[in-house]
């Protein structure tokens, strides 16, 4: 072994601080409640399932605020990208919750520079159809690089609200129907495969945690307007009915390529004990339950003006 090789071997690949920053970004981290039960790490894909409304977007906003806040404020100190496929995101609500969060740690007159820093770290793209979504995913790499340079921190959290937004449009799409190869596959499948593939590629260069919401599009036949979920469905159509305990069922409608991409799954639904129909202290109650990994106890969560909390 010549001297050069030995020097290279001793020299090592990276400095301790480089290693620390690399390792700490890969290390699992805990979100504050309501997502506190299971540690998550970059590369995980979390799916939040629930009927509309079930505070899914609220939970996303909550997690987003945690991510953009600096470490000394209990945050994770990085950028968040919010892909709005439902086109219903309300920035005023985000700003309101952010101010609530900041003032918890200080006085009533909140820190304007901290506020501006957090708002600037929240990145947002809105897509009106599947092709725009695909477009966005394809071009995200360069744009995320640019943002990383500007802010000095990278995007570690990608949110998709909601992944099934274009389901019906894609299902009915005639876009590949004239082609020969379309007979083998539905457009819906092709699209999902392309989406998952693009996200996978993106994750290789930008390690991120993904949280996607999914609304239940196949309503339960035996549901009512106020109490959509608390129903028992008959055994008959159990072929592709996902089952959870005895009292809630939703139909899986995403293609299998997405289903196998998901690593964690959370179910949100309205709580029976405090029905959302009562105006109970200006807040609404939901149950949050981990389906993957399966945790047997559901958390009761409360949505108030000030944000999302776990009800003890």
């Amino acid at each position, binding site marked *: 072994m010549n001297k050069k090789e030995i020097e290279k071997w001793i020299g090592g690949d990276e400095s301790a601080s480089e290693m620390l920053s690399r390792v700490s970004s890969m290390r699992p981290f805990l979100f504050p409640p309501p997502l506190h039960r299971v540690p998550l790490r970059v590369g995980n894909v979390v799916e939040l399932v629930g009927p*509309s*409304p079930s505070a899914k*977007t609220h939970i996303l906003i909550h997690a987003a605020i945690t991510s953009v806040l600096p470490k000394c404020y209990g945050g994770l100190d990085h950028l968040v990208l919010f892909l709005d496929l*439902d*086109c*219903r*995101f*309300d*920035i005023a*609500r*985000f*700003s*309101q919750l952010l101010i609530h969060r900041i003032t918890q740690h200080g006085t009533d007159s909140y820190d304007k520079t901290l506020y501006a820093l957090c*708002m*600037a*770290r*929240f*990145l*947002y*793209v*809105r*897509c*009106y159809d599947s092709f*725009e979504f*695909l*477009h966005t995913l*394809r*071009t995200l790499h*360069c*744009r995320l690089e640019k*943002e990383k340079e500007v802010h000095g921190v990278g995007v570690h959290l990608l949110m998709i609200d*909601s992944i099934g*937004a*274009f389901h*019906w*449009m894609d*299902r*009915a*799409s005639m*876009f590949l129907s004239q*082609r020969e190869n379309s007979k083998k596959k539905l457009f819906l499948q*092709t*699209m999902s495969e*392309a989406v998952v593939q693009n996200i996978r590629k993106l994750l290789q260069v930008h390690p991120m945690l993904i949280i996607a919401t999914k*609304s*239940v*599009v196949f*309503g339960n*036949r035996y*549901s*009512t*307007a*106020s109490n959509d979920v608390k129903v028992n469905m008959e055994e008959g159509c159990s072929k592709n009915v996902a089952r959870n305990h005895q009292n809630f069922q939703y139909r899986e409608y995403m293609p299998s390529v997405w289903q196998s991409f998901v690593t964690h799954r959370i179910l949100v639904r309205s709580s029976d004990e405090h029905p959302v*129909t*009562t*105006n109970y202290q*200006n*807040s*609404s109650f939901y149950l949050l339950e981990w389906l993957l990994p399966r945790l047997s106890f559901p958390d009761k969560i409360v949505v*108030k003006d000030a944000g999302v909390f776990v009800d003890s």
Partner: protein
Amino acid sequence: MAPLESLEKEYPLIDSNFQSFCASHGIFSVEDFLLHDLDALLSFTDNHSTSQTLKQGIDQLISIIDALHPPLLNGLQLLEDAQRNKHVLSTGCEGIDALLRGGLREGQLTELVGSSSSGKTQACLLSASTVVAKHKSSVIYLDTGNSFSPQRIAHFVGQSSGHIFGNQADHMLKKVLDRIICYSVFDVYHMFDVLHQLKINLRSEIVKSNQHVRLLIVDSISSLITPILGGSGPQGHALMISAGFLLKKLAHEHNIAVLVTNHVVGGDDGISKPAMGESWKSVPHVRILLSRDCGSNVCDISILKHPSMVCHLIRKFLYDVVYVS
């Protein structure tokens, strides 16, 4: 989007050779290209004699795509847009305004749900006349059941300008009616036609600020959508969701408040629920339920869904101005 042939003129790299290469992989348009695995495509070029130019063509296509992407905004820019461009429009009905903290928000899709004769159309007509009179702007009114009533509008205008008489009142009424553009629409395809035409008009006539459209009403959207929802195919639902996205896109890009009405249907256990099912639920920003006991003037308004309000149901009893005739 564009077929590859149409790009040839502008971008010489996308020549017939490149097109035939793409066609051999089933790529005929930019959409096909988006769906295709890029790395696989790049590795295929290696087997070709002209791999260098093919790769350049692919790079060219990627740069075309890059230029088209939807914008990436940060929270500050979003908030600035919301504060500058997305105003709140009064509906003229105190109960609804109080509940919604001021009224309908531009850029949002608000849905009024209620059984027959619960006051949905009245609320639409009142909002139309209020927005025109108060905000000096135009209103697009899609009427699906011949329920648009100029007499009602005249009544509302008369009510709000009680101290003006004679010619002046007529003049004012004429001005208001001039600015409510009403379309009779009887099927969903006609609605798409009208909305697409509106989109084109709005894009080309941005400068005409005195005719600025700020409110779009579809009364009722459910009577257009429910007939196409039956059957086993996904086409009906696809049209419904596309209509939702088209309305939201119009609302967001042109800062228009969109107000649609929906009827209620009986649930399985006798409790009525909004029509159009579970998939529609995730379309509107705001859902308001109107209900009225038979023969009374008391209107019950509640919020089923709101992006920034927590409580999903607030009950308010009020003597609604809508019913005073």
